[in-house]
């Protein structure tokens, strides 16, 4: 395995900060907006963004939830058992602007499943997508992110892994390549 660090340290922090500022441009004080992280890895991004937004906007009420999409995936019975994670959305999304967040946007299938899953919680006014990493030119379905941390050109055999200070000890985006 060959590891290439794409983003870490202060640059990582700046990227998160920039995404927060872009969100504020469109969502003002977040009174009509909610943040939803997609399980399993998108929830750390959503939590971090929510935390930063609370620092920038101390008076506003930032709502953030976790969404599990296991039951909505389109590869059920096509790969090994998919064990569900927890969904925790304790607010109403009906009529709200929803910002869905995932760490890596790749084929787009996860996002399709997430849009399906979200319907069980009401009809949002608008849905946007924030991805920390956009693996360009690899989409299987027509999905695009509204907010992108970094864009990465990669091939299918490579992997992009985002690690977080809270769970993995360090904020970092790595590109893993298999060495033949």
């Amino acid at each position, binding site marked *: 395995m060959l590891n290439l660090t794409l983003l870490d340290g202060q640059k990582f922090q700046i990227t998160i900060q920039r995404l927060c500022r872009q969100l504020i441009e469109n969502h003002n004080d977040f009174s009509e907006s909610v943040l939803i992280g997609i399980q399993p890895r998108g929830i750390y991004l959503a939590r971090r963004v929510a935390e930063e937004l609370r620092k920038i906007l101390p008076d506003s009420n930032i709502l953030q939830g976790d969404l*599990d999409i*296991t*039951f*909505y*995936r389109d590869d*059920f*019975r*096509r*790969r*090994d*058992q*998919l*064990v*569900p*994670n*927890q*969904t925790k959305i304790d607010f109403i999304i009906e009529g709200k602007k929803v910002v869905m967040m995932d760490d890596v946007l790749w084929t787009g299938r996860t996002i399709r499943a997430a849009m*399906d899953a979200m*319907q*069980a*919680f*009401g009809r949002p006014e608008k849905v946007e997508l924030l991805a920390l990493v956009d693996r360009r030119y690899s989409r299987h379905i027509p999905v695009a992110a509204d907010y992108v941390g970094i864009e990465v050109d990669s091939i299918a055999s490579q992997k992009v892994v985002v690690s977080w200070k809270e769970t993995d000890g360090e904020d970092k985006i790595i590109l893993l390549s298999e060495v033949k």
Partner: protein
Amino acid sequence: MAGLSTRHLLGIKDLNLEDIQLIFETADTFKSVLNRPIKKVPSLRDVTIANIFFENSTRTRLSFELAEKRLSADVVNFAASSSSVSKGETLIDTVNNILAMKVDMVVMRHPYAGAGIFLSKHVNAQIVNAGDGAHEHPTQALLDAFSIREKYGDVAGKKVVIVGDILHSRVALSNILCLKQLGAEVMVCGPTTLIPKYIGTLGVKVEHNLVKALNWCDVANMLRIQLERQDIKYFPSLREYTMLYGLNKRILDSLDKEIMVMHPGPINRGVEITSDVADSRQSVILEQVENGVAIRMAVLYLLAGQTP
């Protein structure tokens, strides 16, 4: 991620501790799905399930059917009483004919013990046992243990007494196996004639005095007297049975602790349990029914998800 260790759910006998824990964890998620405004998920949209019932059922059949529909499976129902079985068709022929219509899973209840196991050896579909004679009723045992876990946080170390017609009860056997796997202590209580002779080999205590049993336990699971399976008289009269083994408010209030009261249904009110107990705060009978759908969704989801 590891799935279930078995391709069919024929009995608790086939499940190991990890399987049971996996079913519980999956059922937790489905329980939260069932409390959403939209209770349906699309997981099993390309799966067809046949519910084949050779014996009467209300709860189990409805519960399975709801679980299947909430998972978006296609469902066909079949009741033996209104079918060609009465014209002399064999079990394998009946099921193979149903499978020829491209059915992936079969949920079956049958009056003979081992019918599910027999079928699993002869047909090419996943079988879920919804009760086979006096043998096993695995989903009932899972939902009972799940209800205890929900109330007490854990099943291990809990004392559970099963009261009533142990001899003819598939719920009793599955419950004993499931609770023992999870580390609970189990006691059976009933008239000598309704306790199987070799029940001790399952590692359960036997008690013939209801009050003593209730004083020992944390959970009492009250079973129905299965008159339809009793070919001879096992006790002089129902009235006498009720006097000795019926749970009423007076006995419940005389205990020095608050126990949890369960019943797999159908209830014969005034026989094994009085109405005021069945409807009391200590009874979790309706919670059991609610959990039944979540448990069955988990079982069907985990079985169907196995890659062929």
